[in-house]
């Protein structure tokens, strides 16, 4: 028996225009929501922080965002919870094809582009540097908008960059760079994208959210089983390149469950961000996760 | 409409210096009077006219119309500016009809009205022309038509006929006297032409050099229509010209 008042008329979902959200694209493409009786409206947005803002403002119910804006939102008091995982790893450090940089210490004094202060990639880079007793001061770190990061390398304006897929593979695909190190090697199984939902939406529409997240699990499984089809689908949804996606997708680990490993890796990542001063608040897993839907 | 100027002075402040332009003017203009203002270039005639119109205000003294203070411009006091003042974005007809338009008169009626005055100044053929297509004298005539079309109780006219040939000027002088005799407006008329002043005015007021003071007043008691060849006309002209030359 369904309590109709508990049903959301529309579920609005905001997501980044990125192959990390492949599971969502698959679900939409295969009409999974409609078949489950959910009326899902989707909105692309250009940054994780604006997705958090949109979820906070109530205009959007569910968001696919990077772990960093999610944690920053929660620590700033935005009433959201992480309700599911989306993917792990999928970033990498790239250098010029003929570069003589072969290890992290070689980066000393070099220009390295990152997608911005406190981005997952910058955090990973700084974390990696620590292993060699280096700090940000040892390199020349540039904040560059993600979409021009590969160009800064290709045009010789940076010696290396750290970015997420497909911008890692892009340079190898275009033969303008090679991967120095994938992020899995920096911090194994580090978290990347997650699904957030507003607290009052969680409270008022648990059944709908459950359905939504069940579909997320199914579509994630589909992606893992059909990487090639997914690559072509992504190409249709976004203006990208199927062969590039075919090369890039294997570097991403698609997951859906908030299992203990995932929670631990988030808490670990949170700690690193706290050490770097990017997150001030002390957060408990209860404040961050709502595991009733995808508890794994 | 009657005007009274009591001890009116005007000082302009500019940059570092002050310039007293008008000094202690005392003048009463009766209702229905035709007054001409004569005086050297830069003696404050325009300034006085502007203050009477409410476009500028005395530094000292007081100006009243019909006993009440002049606090700003009003359609009761029509003004013909010394410089070109036609709206460049309106043709002749719409320039002349402006006053009637803002009064809310119907298009048909106000065009009819305006056309009468355009005819009077001899520009019927140019009613669709824009100001930049007119000669200097033609612009001045449109401005006169524009002021008259508005049918004000007082007319303040600043050298309105200065750019006109003798023929046109005489025609318009006649027309103006005719209108004035019909409507009995109060007219204050600035001119440098003594002949014109004597032809038009009930009274001619002569200003001194800067700062402008009234140095002489002449009553013109010659009966209208005035004959320029009459001795009294010629004599008065000579008398005034002598005063102007000091």
């Amino acid at each position, binding site marked *: 028996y369904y309590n109709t008042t508990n049903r959301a008329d529309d579920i609005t979902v905001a997501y980044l225009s990125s192959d990390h959200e492949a599971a969502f694209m698959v679900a939409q493409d295969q009409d999974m929501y409609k078949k489950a009786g959910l009326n899902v409206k989707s909105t692309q947005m250009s940054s994780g922080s604006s997705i958090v803002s949109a979820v906070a403002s109530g205009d959007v119910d569910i968001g696919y965002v990077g772990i960093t804006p999610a944690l920053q939102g929660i620590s700033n008091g935005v009433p959201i919870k992480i309700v599911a995982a989306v993917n792990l790893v999928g970033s990498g450090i790239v250098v010029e094809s003929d570069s003589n940089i072969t290890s992290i210490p070689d980066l000393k004094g070099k220009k390295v582009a990152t997608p911005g202060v406190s981005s997952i990639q910058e955090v990973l880079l700084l974390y990696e540097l620590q292993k060699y007793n280096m700090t940000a001061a040892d390199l020349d770190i540039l904040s560059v908008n993600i*979409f021009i990061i590969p160009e800064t390398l290709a045009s010789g304006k940076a010696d290396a960059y750290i970015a997420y897929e497909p911008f890692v593979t892009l340079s190898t695909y*275009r033969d303008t760079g090679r991967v120095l190190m994938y992020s899995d090697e920096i911090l194994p199984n580090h978290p990347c994208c997650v699904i957030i939902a507003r607290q009052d939406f969680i409270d008022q529409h648990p059944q709908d959210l459950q359905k939504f997240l069940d579909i997320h699990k199914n579509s994630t499984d589909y992606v893992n089983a059909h990487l090639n089809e997914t690559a072509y689908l992504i190409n249709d949804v976004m*203006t990208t390149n199927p062969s590039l996606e075919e090369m890039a997708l294997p570097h991403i680990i698609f997951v859906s469950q908030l299992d203990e490993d995932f929670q631990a890796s988030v808490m670990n990542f949170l700690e690193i961000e706290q050490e770097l001063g990017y997150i001030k608040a002390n957060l408990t897993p209860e404040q961050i996760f709502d595991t009733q839907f995808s508890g794994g | 409409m009657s005007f009274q100027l009591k001890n009116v002075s005007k000082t302009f402040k500019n940059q570092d210096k002050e310039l007293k332009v008008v000094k202690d003017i005392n003048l009463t203009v009766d209702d229905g009077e035709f007054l001409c203002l004569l005086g050297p270039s830069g003696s404050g005639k325009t300034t006085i006219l502007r203050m009477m119109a409410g*476009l500028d205000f005395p530094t000292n003294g007081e100006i009243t119309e019909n006993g009440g203070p002049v606090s700003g*411009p009003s*359609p009761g006091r029509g003004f013909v500016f010394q410089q070109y003042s036609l709206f460049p974005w309106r043709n002749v007809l719409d320039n002349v009809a402006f006053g009637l338009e803002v009064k809310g008169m119907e298009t048909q009626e106000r065009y009819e009205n305006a056309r009468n005055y355009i005819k009077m100044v001899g520009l019927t053929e140019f009613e669709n022309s824009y100001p930049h297509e007119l000669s200097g004298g033609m612009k001045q005539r449109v401005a006169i038509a524009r002021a008259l079309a508005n049918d004000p109780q007082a007319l303040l006219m600043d050298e309105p006929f200065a750019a006109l040939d003798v023929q046109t000027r005489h025609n318009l002088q006649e027309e103006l006297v005719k209108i004035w005799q019909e409507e009995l407006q109060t007219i204050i008329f600035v001119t440098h032409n003594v002949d014109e002043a004597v032809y038009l005015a009930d009274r001619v007021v002569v200003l001194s050099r800067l700062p402008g003071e009234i140095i002489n007043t002449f009553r013109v008691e010659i009966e209208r229509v005035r004959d320029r060849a009459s001795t009294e006309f010629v004599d008065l002209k000579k008398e005034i010209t002598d005063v102007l030359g000091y």
Partner: protein
Amino acid sequence: MALIIPIIILIIWGILTTYTGLIPSYLIPSPYAVLQAFENLITNGTLLTDTVSTLIRVFLGFMVAALVAIPLGILIGWFKIADDLSGFIIGILRPIPPIAWIPFAILWFGVGLGSAIFIIFLGSVFPILINTIDGVKRTDKVYIESAYTMGASQLQTLRKVVVPAALPNIITGLKVGIGIGLMCTVAAEMIGSDNGLGYLIFTSTSMLDTASAIVAMLVIGVIGLAFDYLFTRTERKINW
């Protein structure tokens, strides 16, 4: 005639990208690659939808900007008190980057058309406003005085004298305003749009598909040109 310079640019561009190795194609594609991208975007229909949706957003944002800025500019140019009251706050708000307004846009207008219109409005409104204010302030006094002596009320003087006198400046403001409004399409379409030329620029650059980005840039340019033509014609018509 007007095409001489564009053609020269086209030729240089073609030579540099095709025959010399000076500019690698992943940075700036050849004219031919742009043509291909154009054909591609035409055939799959996205260019048309993108253009139409951007046009709608820009037109609405610009219209709102004009409807706000022209009356407000007249008010501020005319009443010293309005000028004194608003000068500071307008001065402060004016240079704030549209992107910085995005969180506010989301709060006030949600994700979608409203926010996009708001961002474009922000880009257009100030050029129109400043030009209108300055145009009104510089209206020749003799016209205003003429109107008053003919009995025009303040409102009538504003409508029938000050506005036509300031119109050339207002049109300059509209020309600049539509340009800046178009400039803001990228920022506007970063919030909750999945179409539009700004979105196309954003996504295709992010995929290093510079050819498509250039197509979108050129279409925006052509839209701007069309508005320019419109305003120049209007201007010529009223140019007394």
